């Protein structure tokens, strides 16, 4: 063992340790931010380790340096710019995009090695070794391609660039995907039997498979899909580790892959969905239109902003239920102004956060934190649910499915069993909503028909602004 090998070994070991601590720390509120930095540091450390190893052994050609610098500058620059510029509301699709690019990177490495075998491979040709090499190349290409196209489709769907095509909701999609999967398998066997050119077939069919699997999945389930694809990109990285013979890559990739799988499981639980039904069940809305989704509303009460303000002024306890609509309208700051006024009047204000509010677990907390809402006022569903009967006014802002009583009462509803906020228990419920359109699941919301529910129609931001005006006129918060 010479010095460069020892140094690289020590650095790699340290990097793995720090990465593990980083992932661990990210799962606790207190340590999360430091943990993220620690992981970033570990990543840079691993690069230093790798480069110093090659400098100390084979050396790095000038030409290589040039390409390293070009690639890193462009990649880092775009990554940093996007990360700084992107609004907090489009966080889920941003993560999906980043993730897809990670998959693409693994795919390209494997592709590069497949087309131009790197030196050292051929001299001592060994059947077993080349088999392993081809298997790991195939896995890396296959998983990398699925991660890439799947993430891009997920991003496009969340952005609203892509809707769910009708055919993907029929049984046809299973057939189509099975064809892609079988074709991938054929390409794989063709590849390991020595036909290098079938790598292209593998790239194409696995890309199509990524699209075919992700396209039918409804928007509400997207976070789970993104988390799963994130786990895949870890697996792709581990496979790339086998391709280039890097233990660090294998450990880190396996770690992310496994941790991502657990996180996916945790998220599924939060939404009362099983991974199987997310992946193969298709979009919720498509199943439901036939059953309970077609119901008409019979007893809608709509009211003016003024009435809403009057009721709020007389309240002692108000619970706010924010949803994605609030995020889309960018109304979290306006909402904060409203609640400030109420608080100044001695009214107790609490925010009820459904586990999947804002389309991605934790997304709503991020948005409200951005608007300076004190952390202590954000209450999780299980904590806040017993409080609803003692609450005077509930303000539902752009949330829909998460306050649908059907999930508790109607066993034929596709939502049945999903944990929901029991807002109907409160004395008065105001639902601020643009129109009567259905929520993300496409299912009728029984809450709107209840006698203690009033609808305030309009854009969330505009309604809240009007509300501030009305509250001012009533002298709320002016003491």
């Amino acid at each position, binding site marked *: 063992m010479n010095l460069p090998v020892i140094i690289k070994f020590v650095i790699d070991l340290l990097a793995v340790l720090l990465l593990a601590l980083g992932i661990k720390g990210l799962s606790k509120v207190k340590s999360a931010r430091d943990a993220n930095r620690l992981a970033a540091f570990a990543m840079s450390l691993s690069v230093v380790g790798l480069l110093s190893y090659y400098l100390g052994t084979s050396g790095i050609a000038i030409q290589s340096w040039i390409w390293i610098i070009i690639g890193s500058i462009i990649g880092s620059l775009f990554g940093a710019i996007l990360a700084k510029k992107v609004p907090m509301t489009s*966080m889920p699709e941003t993560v999906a995009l980043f993730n897809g690019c990670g998959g693409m*990177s693994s795919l390209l490495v494997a592709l590069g090695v497949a087309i131009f075998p790197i030196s050292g491979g051929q001299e001592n040709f060994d059947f077993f070794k080349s088999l392993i090499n081809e298997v790991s190349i195939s896995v890396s290409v296959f998983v990398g391609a699925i991660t890439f196209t799947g993430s891009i489709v997920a991003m496009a769907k969340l952005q609203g660039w892509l809707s769910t095509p009708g055919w993907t909701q029929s049984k046809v999609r299973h057939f189509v995907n099975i064809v892609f999967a079988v074709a991938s398998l054929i390409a794989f066997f063709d590849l390991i039997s020595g036909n290098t050119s079938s790598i292209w077939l593998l790239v194409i069919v696995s890309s199509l498979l990524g699209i075919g699997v992700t396209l039918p999945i409804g928007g509400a389930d997207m976070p789970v899909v993104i988390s799963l694809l994130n786990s895949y990109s870890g697996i792709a990285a581990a496979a790339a580790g086998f391709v280039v*013979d890097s233990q660090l*890559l*294998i450990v880190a990739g396996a770690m992310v892959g496994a*941790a991502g799988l657990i996180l996916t499981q945790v998220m599924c639980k939060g939404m009362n969905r099983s991974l199987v039904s997310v992946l193969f069940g298709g979009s919720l809305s498509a199943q439901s239109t036939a059953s309970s989704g077609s119901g008409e509303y019979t007893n809608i009460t709509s009211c003016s902003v003024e009435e809403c303000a009057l009721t709020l002024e007389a309240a002692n306890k108000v619970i706010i239920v924010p949803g994605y609509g609030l995020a889309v309208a960018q109304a979290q700051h306006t909402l904060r102004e409203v609640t400030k006024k109420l608080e100044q009047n001695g009214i107790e204000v609490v925010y009820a956060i459904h586990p999947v509010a804002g389309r991605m677990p934790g997304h709503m907390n991020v948005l409200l934190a951005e608007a300076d809402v004190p952390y202590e006022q954000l209450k*999780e569903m299980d904590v806040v649910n017993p409080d609803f009967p003692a609450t005077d006014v509930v303000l539902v802002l752009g949330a829909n499915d998460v306050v649908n009583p059907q999930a508790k009462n109607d066993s034929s509803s596709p939502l049945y069993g999903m944990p929901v906020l029991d807002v109907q228990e409160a004395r008065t419920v105001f639902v601020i909503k643009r129109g009567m359109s259905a929520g993300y699941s496409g299912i009728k919301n029984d809450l709107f028909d209840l006698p203690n529910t009033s609808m305030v129609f309009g854009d969330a931001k505009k309604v809240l602004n009007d509300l501030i005006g009305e509250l001012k006129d009533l002298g709320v918060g002016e003491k």
Partner: protein
Amino acid sequence: MSFISLLWVLLLGSLLGLELIGKVPPTLHTPLMSGANAISGITMLAALTLIVKAEGNVPLLIIGSVSLGFALFNVVGGFFVTDRMLAMFSRKPSNKK
């Protein structure tokens, strides 16, 4: 490194990953996913290896460089965006009276 020992590395790495995350508060799901996602950009090491070992093969250098760019886009963007999210939590307790 023999294949068998690499398999051991894979196995132990996976087990470690399974153990690392137990109970995660829903608040942290998005940042955790985003942070783990940044780490999966570790494949940048494979891209670097490819470039170093390309030995003047220009197409391979280009593939490696593009791959490195994608990976770093993931890593740098991922860590920054996670930090942005987490910064909002940690700021909270201090600026409320």
